[in-house]
């Protein structure tokens, strides 16, 4: 079974600085998707960034980028130029690509990010 591990329960960063959130996963599959989701307090979860395992190039979305190391099964999220609005819980998630009926999202336990002015 696939598992996702986030070893940092909490992280903090100063506004305008850069922070990296860690995620490791375990799978025997070769094809899958990895996601970072953001969950602000009392608000719905939204997708931050997505990575297809077959792509070697790391995904980037504006201030958000990932460091995807397939052999090491590592998928970290880097937030550059941090803003107060980035404060939230961040969840790393795994999704199999074996078939449409096996595509549930498997989540890590989350990292709470605090941003200080």
């Amino acid at each position, binding site marked *: 079974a696939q598992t996702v591990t986030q070893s940092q329960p909490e992280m903090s960063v100063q506004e305008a600085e850069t922070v990296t959130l860690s995620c490791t996963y375990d799978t025997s599959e070769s094809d899958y998707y990895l996601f970072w989701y953001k969950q602000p307090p009392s608000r719905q979860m939204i997708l931050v960034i997505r990575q297809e395992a077959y792509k070697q190039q790391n995904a980037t979305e504006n201030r958000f980028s990932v460091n995807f190391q397939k052999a090491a099964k590592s998928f970290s999220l880097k937030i550059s130029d941090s803003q107060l609005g980035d404060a939230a819980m961040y969840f790393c998630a795994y999704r199999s690509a074996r078939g449409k*009926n096996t*595509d*549930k999202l498997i989540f890590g336990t989350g990292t709470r990010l605090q941003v200080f002015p």
Partner: protein
Amino acid sequence: EAGVAQSPRYKIIEKRQSVAFWCNPISGHATLYWYQQILGQGPKLLIQFQNNGVVDDSQLPKDRFSAERLKGVDSTLKIQPAKLEDSAVYLCASSLWEQGAEAFFGQGTRLTVV
């Protein structure tokens, strides 16, 4: 486009009572998920629907939880009878029926069992 709608937002019940949650997914999304998020943990899948058929309910406590998705659109999740350990946020999400498609989440229902 309208997002995933859930109701109620909050619910407090006594143990052994029953409760139901409702979810309206994004129009056109064939896949619907119910997740349970216990405080301090990541969301855990309870059940996944493809249209009105169940794809995965392996982690649904079937002795007390039930879910249905009539006509392949709205869905309800029921707990009967509730236990203290059912206190959690229940998240509904939907996605297109495509490999790797983004899942869109509702705001969730926070259930407190006392």
